[in-house]
C-alpha cells in the first residue's frame, strides 16, 4: 500500500470539492490511479484520458513528484508511482 498526496487544481476541484487529500492506493501507475479516482469522482477519467488513444488528453496536465524530488510533467500515463509521492492534477 502506498501513501500519496493528491493535489487538485482549478477546474479539477469541481469534481473533487477539495484542493488536496491523502490517498492510500495499490495503483502501480498514474493511469491506474486515474481509473481509481474515477470511481470516487465520476468524470475524472474523461478529464485526463483520451478514450480513443488511452493517452493523456492534450488539454490536461499531471505532475508527479517522488519524495524529495522536483515534480515532473507526466506525458506517459504508465509512469510508475511510489510511496510518499505527490500527484498534481490540472
Amino acid at each position, binding site marked *: 500500500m502506498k501513501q500519496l498526496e493528491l493535489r487538485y487544481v*482549478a477546474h479539477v476541484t469541481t469534481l473533487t470539492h477539495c484542493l488536496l487529500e491523502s490517498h492510500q492506493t495499490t495503483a502501480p501507475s498514474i493511469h491506474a490511479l486515474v481509473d481509481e479516482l474515477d470511481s470516487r469522482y465520476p468524470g475524472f477519467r474523461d478529464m485526463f484520458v483520451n478514450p480513443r488513444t488511452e493517452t493523456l488528453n492534450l488539454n*490536461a496536465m499531471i505532475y508527479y513528484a517522488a519524495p524529495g524530488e522536483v515534480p515532473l510533467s507526466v506525458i506517459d500515463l504508465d509512469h510508475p508511482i511510489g510511496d510518499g509521492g505527490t500527484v498534481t492534477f490540472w
Partner: protein
Amino acid sequence: MAAATTVRDNRTQTILWVDLSEGSTRLETLPEAWTAKYLGSRGVNARLLFDHVPAGTDPLGPDNVLFFGTGPLDGLPVGMGRISIACKSPRGTVAEGSCGGFFGPEMRRAGVDYIAIRGQADHPVYLYIQDSASGEVAELRDARHLWGLKTDETDAALRRELADPDVQFRYIGPAAENLVHASPIFGNLHNSGGRAGCGQVMGSKGLKAIAVRGTQGIRVADYDAFVDAYKVLRQRLDLATSRDMWTPVWSTYGAPVLARLFPDLGNLMTRNAQQMTWDYDKAMRISSEPYLDSYVTKAKACYCCPWPACQKLHKIDSGKYGGFKGGNYWAAQPVVFGSLIDNDDLELLLVLSGLCNQYGLDVFHVGYTLAWAMECFEHGLLTTTDADGLELRFGCTDKDGLVDLIPKIARREGFGGLLALGCAEAAKVVGQGSERFCLAVKGQELEGIPQRNLYMVALGIAVSEVGPDHTRWYPPYPCNPSLISPEELAELGIDLDLRLAFQGRNPEQKGKLLRWFTISRAIVESLPSCVFLVRDTLGLDLRPWWKLFRAATGFDLDYREFVAAGERLMNLDRAFNVREGYRRADDRPPVRMATEDVPGFGYPRLAPERFEPMLDEYYEANGWSVTTSIPTRRKLAELGLDDVAAEFAALGIEAEP
C-alpha cells in the same frame, strides 16, 4: 447601439494626428501597402515610432509621440479588442504594450485606426473622438476637472459627462500625472497597457483621457473564407476540443493557480527571489480557488473573447477591507503582492493590487520595488525613519502601512517618492550595493516569471527591446512539444529541434526558439489578437491567422510574406533601440539571476558560459551582429528596410554587411 451608418473595409488604415501644443487634429490615410508590410497595430506602431521619434528625443518632451493602434482584425470577432500603445520610454527604449477591452473596436467604428499624439497641452485636456455626418472627428476638451482623479473616478466622471453608455475610454491615474516610473494607461477600470511608461508620457503631455464613440460597420473582404477560418479558431478555443493544456485552467480559474504549481518546481519568486519556493499552505491561500469561492462577483471577457476568466470582477464583502471592489486578479498579483513580499493574506493582496489600478500604477513596478526596499531594510540599508515609520519586513506585519504607501507612491510623497522612481533608479539613490537587490532589465522590473529554471525566459527577458514583457514570447512554460511535429516544422520553414528547445535548463536551441516565438507573437499582436490564443500549435503554425488576415483584408499575401511582417517588426524595434545607443551589453539578466544559484534546487546561476551562447544563437538566427546586436545590412535589405540601414549610416552607426 445606433445602427451603422457606413461600412469600412480592412485594406486601408487611417491615422488621427493630434498636436496638443497647437490644439489641432488631422485625419489621414496610411499607405495601403503598409497593411501588407506591417499588418497593423503593433507592426504599424513600430514603423510610425521609428519614423516620427528620432534618436535623442526627450521622452517626456513635446516631440515624443504616443501612438494608439488597432488593426485589420480589430472589431472582428477574432481581434479580442486588442490595441497597441507605443512611444519612446522615459528609460530611452521602445515602449510598447498591448491591452484588451473594447476601446480598439470602438476606434475602428469611429473611422480611426491609429491615434498619434504629439506636443504638450498648456492645461489638462481629454480627446473626444466621434464619427459624425459633418465630418468632424475629434476635439480636445478641457480636463482640469478630471486631473487628479483616480482611474475609477475618471471613468465615472466621463460616463456622467458624455452620457452615452457605449463610449469607450482610455485614461491615466494620478501616478502618470505625476510622471511615476512605468505608469501604464488604463481602461474599462482594470485593463492596463504600456507598462513601459506609456502612461507617464501621456501624463507629460497633459492628456488625461481619450473617449471614443463610433457607429460604422466593418466588412471583411471574403465573408465565406473568413467564417471558415473563424470556425477553425473557435474550435481551438473550445473547452471540449482544444489541444491547449492551459485552456481548461485559464478559461475558468485563471493564472493565479500557478502559485500552487511553482513552489515545488523552484519557480516562485519569494522574498525578492532570495528563495524560489514557498510554503504550500500559503500558496493555496492566494490561489484562484479561494478567490473564486469568496470574492468573484462577475466574469468579464474582452471584446468577443469566448474565455470568461481574464477579467473577473471581485468584491470583499466584510471585515477590515469590506466593500473594496476590484478586478483582473491574474498571474502577476499572486507573485508581486504575494510570495515576493511573503504575504499570504489574499484580501491584503487584492487591496494592494486594486489600489495600484485606482492610482494608475504598474503592479510589477510597485511589487518589485517594494520587495527591493524590504531586502534593503533587512540589510540595514533602509530604516524605519527612511520609510516614514513603516516596518518594511517580508511577511508584511505592517499591513496598514503598506496600504497607505500605495497612494504615497502615486503622489511621490515622502518615502513613496523613492519607490516612485522604480528599483533601478531608487538603488542609485540608496547605493551601498542595493543594486544587486533590484530585479530589473533595462531599468524595468521583472514580471514574476522564473529564469534560472527556464532559460528561454531568461533570454527573452534579457533581449526584449521594451524591457521584461512576457507577451513578446508567451508562453514561458513548456507546453507539450508533440503539439507540432518535425515534419510540420519543416513545412513551415522552421529550423528547430523542439526536443532540445523544451529542456528548460539546456542553453541549446533557446535562441532559435525565442526567435520564432517572438516573430509569431509579433504577428498576432499586429493583426491584432491575443497571444493567449496561440498555444495549441505553440504559436509556431500561424496558418489559421494568415487565413483570417487574407479573408479580412483581401490581401493575397503568401505565408512567408505574412511571417516576414513579424520579423520586420522585430527589426524595427531593435533598430529603434540601436539608434538610442543600446547594444549587446544591455541584453543582460538581473544581477541576482546572473550571480546566485537557486537555493535548495541546484539550479545554477546564469553565468556567462550558459547565457552568452544563447545570446549568440539568438543574434545569429535573427541575422544580427553577434558582436553588437545591430541588424546586418543584408537582413535589413531582405526585409525591405533599406531606409533603416541608410539612417544607421547617416548617424555613423556601423552595421555589418
